[in-house]
């Protein structure tokens, strides 16, 4: 079994508990002054990578855990968090504030990064909670020509570089097996991410963060999708409350739902 060199892409997004507001110009969502944090699915990726090392789950051991993020200067915060959780080092690909990359560009970037870093396992979140595209992992696997296991709820390592992954699918679970190198995307069920302790946060400040640009990877921020407008969803009417069960039944009948 080869030693694992894990690449963990993380994204800085608006915190999951914040209700996003559409901006006045209807060009996007208001981000200024809004709390941001690591995409929840990416926390699962970092946690899983660290657990594979701590619990010695891989027969060949874990040689390296490298977190990577393409984002504005503040994306360094989520990279520090990843290192405080246990990643060894980080790569920050700086994008202008207010700019973002489409999943295909991110996948192309990660392909180059995985090749450069000699990664043999990339663990990504299954989707980012802002764009909700759920594309980057399978795109990356396609570009690299590697096998993929999406929406993983369990990852096991065997001999001869074999990885067995249980995936969440419609109606239940499915188990697939492939050989390294491979791409895995995480489902919420995979693990429970830790909180970084203060000593680890302090230690993370000393870990290495490499700074790069898109050009270093020979890429440009090309947009294939033009956002014409972003609007608030239609608000729901109603909010009626009834006194008792009979009232509930009556109202549902009135609404044609019973």
């Amino acid at each position: 079994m080869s030693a694992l060199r894990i690449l963990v892409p993380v994204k800085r997004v608006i915190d999951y508990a914040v209700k996003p507001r559409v901006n006045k110009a209807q060009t996007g969502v208001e981000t200024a002054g809004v709390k941001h944090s690591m995409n929840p699915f990416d926390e699962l990726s970092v946690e899983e990578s660290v657990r594979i090392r701590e619990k010695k789950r891989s027969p060949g051991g874990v040689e390296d855990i490298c977190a990577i993020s393409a984002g504005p200067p503040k994306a360094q915060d989520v990279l520090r968090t990843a290192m405080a959780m246990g990643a060894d080092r980080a790569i920050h690909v700086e994008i202008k504030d207010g700019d973002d990359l489409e999943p295909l560009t991110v996948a192309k970037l990660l392909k180059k990064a995985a090749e450069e870093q000699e990664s043999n396992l990339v663990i990504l979140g299954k989707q980012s909670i802002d764009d909700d595209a759920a594309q980057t992992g399978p795109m990356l696997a396609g570009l690299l020509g590697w096998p993929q296991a999406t929406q993983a709820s369990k990852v096991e390592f065997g001999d001869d570089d074999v990885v067995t992954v249980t995936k969440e699918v419609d109606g239940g679970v499915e188990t697939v097996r492939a050989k390294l190198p491979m791409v895995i995307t995480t489902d919420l069920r995979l693990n429970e991410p830790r909180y970084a302790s203060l000593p680890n946060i302090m230690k993370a400040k000393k870990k290495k963060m490499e700074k790069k640009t898109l050009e270093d990877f020979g890429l440009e921020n090309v947009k294939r999708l033009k956002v014409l407008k972003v609007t608030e969803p239609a608000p729901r009417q109603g909010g009626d409350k009834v006194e008792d069960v009979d009232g509930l039944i009556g109202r549902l009948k009135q609404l044609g739902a019973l």
Partner: protein
Amino acid sequence: MLGLARHTLFQRFTSLRISSSANYSAVSRSRLLSTLAILEQRDGQLLQGSLNTLTAAKKIGGTVHGFLAGANVSAASEEAAKVDGVEQIIKVENGVYEKGLPETFAPLLTENIKKGNYTHVIGGHTAFGKSLLPRVAALLDSQQVSDITAIEDEKTFVRPIYAGNAIATVECLDPVKVITIRGTAFAPATPESGSSKIVEGVDPNAQASAQWVSEDLAKSDRPDLGSASKVVSGGRGLKSKAEFDNVILPLADALGAAVGASRAAVDSGYADNSLQVGQTGKVVAPQLYMAVGISGAIQHLAGMKDSKVIAAINKDADAPIFQVADVGLVGDLFEKVPEFTQKVKTS
């Protein structure tokens, strides 16, 4: 052959030249549009839910082809061929594709897309589509448009972002547009009197770099969560799996409803993962959605707020679920739900 090519070229030129005539250009443009709709099957059975890709494909305009692959897809192809307005069903019969592994299915699809010169490829935003289509899009160097809820024209699509808290309208500039659709936004096409041709697709017989091992699907006699007309969902308020089963299941059966759950209920083991409704679980839009003991977090609302009628039973009068519910009852669910179930059954 040459004559035909010249003829097509001529058509393209004329349509370009007189594109100022709006009517004519719409017709000639639609002649150049062709959509491949990906159908899903299991053990040779066509998944009826996946026929919504044909519905969406027809909205694009232009020709519509369906695509099916697996160990034994003849019967499923014949069934899909009965959908009106579909020109042909492309089938590839080969056990390699039976489980829909993206490592083999993506090259298969890519070959067939290139051969057919499609302008649009549409699949469902299902576990299968989410795992397969981005891989296909990357192989075609196309930026996929995910989980769309509406088609404005052949290049403009509407999709929810930020857990449905914002709606984005995007124009896709790629020559081949790869799209996944939200199941609840497009009704499945029904096989009727159509008689599409069934043709054999190209089979690249791709090398499998991954292997399917096993599956464990929750068995249930209740309606399928994704397509049910009524859904009853339970949350943290149910307190235990025993209570979930005691309270929610009889209610679902009385209504003939599918059972759903909030993340809290799933995490606590009250219900199976596959029943989770929300941003990261299933998105449903039934006629009636009953939320029992669910507070209504943003992530849960993302999966159900397009339901026609929402009813909520919760003891906390300030729970956010009441802001979206058409009708709410504040009270103890352990009292109210059994009473409701009883009255529905006897009425």
